[in-house]
């Protein structure tokens, strides 16, 4: 089978080829410049972060052997040969794990309620006054940008050691994060129901309650569940600074080289995070179907 491809006359072709060549060259130049800038920034960062490849390669073996060591009991046997010995502290750890879950639950719920109260003031379309929106937005931004564990460090000094500081830190951080997401849901809400309610002479509160809330509530619950999952991770390290939960045990085990304890606690945490992950995913699917996926 033969076929013919029509070829343009050469003067036309030359002009097109020239233009194509130029376009490609321009693109290549931009990519090359970007790469150079990135490499320069990385080199600068490597100096700033005191990267020492010699140390890294000398001790890299330690990183992998660390995982070998945490999988061994004190007597040198593999951990799974003696479950009783490996999880010797399971009563204590389960209790602390429960505490961790409670910290994240109470923190998330408090944060979600606060975010719910604030989000109507932060959304562009429902805020009663521009200055109020500005103030609430800056507040939420502050609560979200300062890391939870920094709040925990300060709260431990103000409220004393213990889970209370962790709960409050998580609550404040969640308020900031959820407040932003909640207000974005409200901004995406359809304003026609609001007009309808408003035209009946309803107050601002009634407008929010009967026109905005029914549209937004599924989104709120979905984001709050997602936040709960993130907060379980967060709460598992709150103990590092003395703010309750299983982190306290973990940091002691890592610092004091109780190898098999490290693996036991880590496995407990990772499994819990898995279970929470799957459970909240299932719950979100059940409650809101496909629409909450986005």
């Amino acid at each position: 089978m033969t076929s013919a491809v029509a070829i343009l006359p050469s003067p036309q072709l030359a002009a097109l080829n020239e233009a194509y060549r130029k376009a490609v060259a321009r693109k290549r130049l931009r990519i090359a410049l970007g790469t150079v800038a990135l490499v320069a920034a990385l080199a600068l960062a490597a100096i700033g972060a005191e990267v020492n490849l010699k140390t890294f390669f000398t001790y890299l073996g330690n990183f992998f052997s660390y995982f070998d060591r945490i999988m061994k009991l004190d007597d040198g046997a593999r951990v799974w040969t003696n479950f009783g010995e490996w999880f010797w502290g399971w009563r204590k750890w389960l209790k602390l794990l429960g505490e961790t879950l409670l910290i994240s639950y109470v923190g998330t719920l408090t944060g979600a309620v606060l975010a719910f109260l604030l989000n109507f003031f932060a959304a562009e379309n429902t805020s009663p006054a521009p200055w109020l929106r500005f103030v609430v937005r800056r507040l939420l931004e502050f609560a979200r940008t300062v890391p939870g564990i920094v709040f925990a460090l300060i709260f431990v000094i103000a409220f004393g050691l213990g889970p209370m500081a962790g709960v409050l830190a998580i609550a404040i951080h969640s308020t900031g994060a959820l407040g932003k997401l909640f207000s974005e849901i409200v901004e995406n809400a359809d304003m026609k129901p609001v007009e309808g309610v408003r035209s009946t002479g309803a107050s601002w509160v009634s407008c929010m309650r009967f026109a905005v809330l029914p549209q937004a509530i599924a989104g709120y619950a979905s984001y709050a569940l997602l936040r709960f999952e993130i907060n379980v991770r967060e709460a598992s390290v709150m103990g590092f600074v003395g703010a309750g939960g299983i982190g306290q045990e973990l940091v002691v085990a890592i610092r004091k080289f109780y190898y098999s304890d490290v693996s036991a606690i880590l496995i407990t945490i990772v499994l819990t995070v898995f279970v929470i992950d799957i459970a909240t995913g299932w719950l979100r699917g059940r409650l809101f179907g496909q629409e909450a996926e986005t």
Partner: protein
Amino acid sequence: MSHVPAPDPAQLRARYPQVFDRPASARLATPLVAILAFAIFVFGLVDLDFSPTRLFNGLHQLGWITLLMLPPDPGASLPLYLKALGETLSIALLGTTLAALMALPISLFAAHNIVPNVIRFPVRRFLDSIRGVDTLIWALVWINVVGLGPFAGVLAIAVSDFGAFGKLFSEAIEAADRKQVEGIRASGGSALHEIRFGLMPQVLPVIAGQVLYFIESNTRSATIIGIVGAGGIGLQLAEQIRVLEWQKVSFLILMILVAVAAIDWISGRLRFAIIGRRAVA
């Protein structure tokens, strides 16, 4: 104009009972869930040692601390803090880049349109377990390996982001269009050609956007890993909180806020330049 007869409520009720009488399970579900949620909340408050007096005293203390924080003042340590901030930004940039470089090849093995499920499933679970461990824990582990300092922070961020990137990248690959890949195959390309010319041009912009977003969020993570001794501004912050130098603490927090806002702005601009407006939104 046609005449519509007025509806008779009794007749309607008889015809559509399910609209008027929802089953008890549906009517009771919401209040039951609410009561249960509230009960767990109260149990939590009691179990976690909340008491009005403690809360009140703590708030009182917190008020004092806030007063003591004003005005923010670095004292004589400003150069030290600026260096620490530079360290933090370096940690974020290097850690994220390393993570992205490691995750790109692995993510191919976690995408169902590249490898069969037999390979995909264990790779996914492996990435999940890495993600399940917090950055701070990785930092502690790396401190055991390479010693205290920012380098441990870089490695901690690299490892924990590796898990997140692996998942995100593989999702981007799974969402890619099959048609380009089929085109490459039809013209006789090998499997590697398919990935290089059919897949990568589609997923690279998405990946670049995600990496830039992570640099921003890692600036936040990098500020806290110093608390366990892995370098950066968090080290200074934790120290000043422990010695109750509140003016320095507030200055450091302010520095973090400004740095995060700056990185946010820069990465937003870069994302805009790389992938255009639609992906920024």
